[in-house]
């Protein structure tokens, strides 16, 4: 079972929710072989490790392929630049320039080069670390500074976890990046349900709508909502959820103690155990939502 914690807006509390859900799941799994996994897929700024300190057992490099032009073979025909959809190649009369930071690694240039002058060579773009802590398997993807594409690192993180059988019977919780673009879609792909974390503000509502469009309407996932810093706001988020038939599975109040624990690097259910039943109920509800939708 794979649950993804996502949001449209950043800073709504994805990691706050994901870490406490995972710790609650870990407590339940005690004694069984299949440890639940928590994957930090917010590869541009992974921060789960600030709350759940893992013993790292493995690091896997993530690479991407970029074209390298053999100047001795290049006939300067310009075909490579013509087929590149990302303008990553400039074909000049006597030189062919590659802008690797714009390359998406599609391989079209190498495939189309009539002179066989282009080869694709791996270039490091990030890493996946795998480890264990507090009854959890922990995975983290990290995009290298200066790299533009998060999606391949997220794909690699999911792949490495899957390859080690973390998925199997056990629960996997994915902490997704914010937004609704490609990295989020990669994090959501293959999920059994998504929990969208929002806040009761007009901005929270605006981005929640976009996240619902992606997770429910485009990807067809069962979707629940978590409202963080729930001081009521203008009530528009709750009204929207009711109107759309989206179940609100978790509400966390706007509380100084929660913020203090978070800024101290403590998972919410560890710092304030009174919230444990709230997260247990949310996990049950999310699992029920996912199971209901199983074929």
């Amino acid at each position, binding site marked *: 079972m794979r649950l993804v914690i996502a949001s449209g807006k950043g800073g709504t509390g994805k990691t706050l929710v994901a870490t406490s859900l995972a710790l609650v799941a870990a407590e339940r799994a005690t004694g069984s072989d299949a440890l639940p996994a928590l994957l930090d897929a917010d590869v541009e700024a992974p921060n789960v490790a600030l709350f759940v300190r893992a013993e790292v057992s493995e690091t896997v490099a993530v690479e991407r392929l970029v074209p390298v032009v053999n100047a001795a073979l290049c006939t300067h025909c310009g075909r490579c*630049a013509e087929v590149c959809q990302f*303008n*990553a190649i*400039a*074909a*000049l*009369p006597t*030189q062919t320039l590659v*802008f690797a930071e*714009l390359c998406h690694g599609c391989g079209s240039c190498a495939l189309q080069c009539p002179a066989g002058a282009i080869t694709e060579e791996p270039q490091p773009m990030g890493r996946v670390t795998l480890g264990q802590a507090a009854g959890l398997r922990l995975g983290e993807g990290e995009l290298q500074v200066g790299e533009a594409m998060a999606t391949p690192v997220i794909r690699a993180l999911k792949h490495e976890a899957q390859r080690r059988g973390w998925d199997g019977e056990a629960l996997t919780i994915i902490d997704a990046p914010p937004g609704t673009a490609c990295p989020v879609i990669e994090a959501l792909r293959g999920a059994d349900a998504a929990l969208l974390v929002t806040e009761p503000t007009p901005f929270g509502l605006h981005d929640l709508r976009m996240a619902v469009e992606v997770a429910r309407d485009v990807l067809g996932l069962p979707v629940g909502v978590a409202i963080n810093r729930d001081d009521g706001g203008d009530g528009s988020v709750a009204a929207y959820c009711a109107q759309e038939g989206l179940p609100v599975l978790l509400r966390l109040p706007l509380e100084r103690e929660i913020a203090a624990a978070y800024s101290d690097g403590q998972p919410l259910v560890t710092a304030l155990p009174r919230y444990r039943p709230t997260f247990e109920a949310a996990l049950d509800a999310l699992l029920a939502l996912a199971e209901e939708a199983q074929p």
Partner: protein
Amino acid sequence: MKIAVSSTAPGAEAQVSPIFGRCNCFVVVDTETQAVASLANPALGASGGAGIQSAQYIVQQGVQAVISGNVGPNAMQVLNAAGVDVYAATGGTVAEVVAALQAGQLEALTGPSVAKDFGKGGPMGGMGGGRGMGGGMGRGRGL
């Protein structure tokens, strides 16, 4: 000599554009024949790499010099590699900046004058970003 000017519209009377990669138009002036050709910028709507594509396009026109308000790092690299000279012009019409270049009044650019995505539109982009010109250095001393 053929000179390409990044411009806001076609024709020799159009204003020089403050941006290169996503300028509306390139006006190519042949100083020997006085011929003026206005070319639409093929990279105007590119999602990325506009500077690279437009610079490649300009190189293909066989120009020896480019005049623009600013030029970004990727376009600069392409123009440098192709041996095209780049000059900065802060304002004026195409005809005026070409005359200024011929009179030796324009500053040659050896490096990019703005950062990547300077002229990129969109929700957060565009030309509002960035730094003030000149620093506060040298002020307030001598007390």
